[in-house]
């Protein structure tokens, strides 16, 4: 029983870190560009399929891990520049554009890669289980877990210590004030959108060996990322991190003990958090 709980704890945390990758991008984008990116799951799916294609043609998961986020991020930059920039401050229109974009991306991916379920094997180094005495656990989720934690620490450090990080925090806190300080919100917003979508793409590459690839996954991932961000608090990376862990744990242990109510539990959790703390666990009240 103890081993079962430990296994499930690791599983939940690994899935939580995947959610964190998605939620982090979504949260950054919301904080800086004030856009609720409902195409986020489609960027995830794009990353996953590109990872599949590049991984197969280049023969290296690791190369795909580096290249795919760059490509997806580039697309994100183009989307921000040519579709969203002109809609600054018009939340509903932006939502509509990202919904449309999500539809377009998802259908193009199905047209190009087919409707078949695809599954990506983990790289050889991370395939198979790890034996720790009587405890057996696959290596790949451990890699995802480590990567999520490292990324969290890294992004925190970047936000705290680098000039760009300071700009991001300034724009998130108050765009008007930031521009009077000589920061160009438009440029920061462009870069943040690129980084946010690149993170979704990274999530796709990392997530593909853990969960399968199929049409319809985009909407599911968008939903998950939104839930995490809302529970944790919008616009804060700590919120995305702890929110992801909470959702991952409730989801994982919900599936273990009350599988028929798993999805219900997550939404109930979200409703509960918002009812008690309307701006999310770690969120600030938005102006």
């Amino acid at each position: 029983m103890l081993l079962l709980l430990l296994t499930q704890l690791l599983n939940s945390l690994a899935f939580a870190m995947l959610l964190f990758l998605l939620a982090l991008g979504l949260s950054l984008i919301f904080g800086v560009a004030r856009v609720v990116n409902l195409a986020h799951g489609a960027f995830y799916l794009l990353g996953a399929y590109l990872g599949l294609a590049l991984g197969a043609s280049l023969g290296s998961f690791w190369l795909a891990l580096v290249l795919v986020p760059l490509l997806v991020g580039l697309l994100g930059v183009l989307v921000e520049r040519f579709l969203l920039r002109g809609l600054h401050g018009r939340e509903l229109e932006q939502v509509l554009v990202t919904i449309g974009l999500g539809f377009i991306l998802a259908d193009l991916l199905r047209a190009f890669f087919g409707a078949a379920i695809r599954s990506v094997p983990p790289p050889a180094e991370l395939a198979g289980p790890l034996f720790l005495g009587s405890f057996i656990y696959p290596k790949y989720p451990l890699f995802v877990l480590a990567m999520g934690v490292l990324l969290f620490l890294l992004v925190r450090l970047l936000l705290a210590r680098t000039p760009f990080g300071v700009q991001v925090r300034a724009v998130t806190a108050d765009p008007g004030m930031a521009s009077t300080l000589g920061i160009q919100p438009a440029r920061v917003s462009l870069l943040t959108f690129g980084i946010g979508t690149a993170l979704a793409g990274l999530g796709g590459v990392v997530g593909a060996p853990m969960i399968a690839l199929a049409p319809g996954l985009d909407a599911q991932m968008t939903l998950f990322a939104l839930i995490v961000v809302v529970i944790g608090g919008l616009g804060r990376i700590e919120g995305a991190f702890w929110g992801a862990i909470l959702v991952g744990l409730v989801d994982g242990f919900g599936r273990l003990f009350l599988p028929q109510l798993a999805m219900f539990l997550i939404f109930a959790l979200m409703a509960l958090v918002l009812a008690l703390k309307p701006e999310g666990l770690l969120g600030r009240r938005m102006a």
Partner: protein
Amino acid sequence: MMAELSREARAGSNGRQGLLRWGLVGLLLLPLALGGYPLYLATEAALLGLAAVALSLLLGHGGVPSLGQAAFLGLGAYTVGLALKAGLPLGLALLLAPLAAALLALLTGLLVFRTHGIFILMLTLAFGQMVYSAAHKWTGLTGGDDGLSLSGLSIHPVLLHLVAVGVLLAAVGGLRALLQTPYGKTLEAIRQNEEKIRSLGVPTFYYKLSLYLLTAALTGLAGSGLALHRSFISPHDLFWLTSATLMVMVLLGGSRGLWGAVFGALLYTFVQAWVSSFTDLWGLFVGSLLVLTVLFAREGLWPLLERRLGGGRGNA
């Protein structure tokens, strides 16, 4: 309703806009002459239009971005279905449906309106999905994902369509009149600056909650109509994608003025049905339509039409 139309038609500067609205009503009624499938689709559009009008009021005039309308739609549908199965007369069943939806709105609204903006979106989504899960799990009552068939129910399609369009137009007229009352004006003011209005001592919470109840009841009514129309109810009607589709309809047509929602519902229903008949990539088409709409007709397609064809300045 008709009085409002003709009054506006007579009102000079608004004359051409009035004509445009008559044109839309004509489009809704035209399938009566065709019958069969076009009529079926038009009834579907009118009923979804009613739900879209409710959302448009909530979103465009109340500033409440609800992504949980499918719950009210589905609850209305199941209420009428189960009431009929239990042997209640149709009239009573149709009365219970909006009441059930409003009751759900009351329960959830108490929590929803403690939050703002995107959080409302997420909280309504959460409640919507909880209702969906319940409909899916409670197979003894709802039949689960096998759905609920309303066998043996026969309402003449022409009658159903006339009633659906009538209710839709009455709703648009009635709600537009409501927006002109002090209640409506206060809602508008709350949407623009809630803090200020609250500081004047107005209980904004109850204004928004009452609006939520009203729109939920209308959506529940639309759902009950859909149940009669399709003679079949499935949990899919409660799934969050149904809420998203309603939102797409509203934003496509234009979220303000309510006529945009009618137009959006009609346009989306027919275009989606038409496109999906010859390509499975209809999502690509719908997505492109959304992006182009936002790029070239920010307020939605209906205000654009009003400007171009109606000569007016569009609905503010």
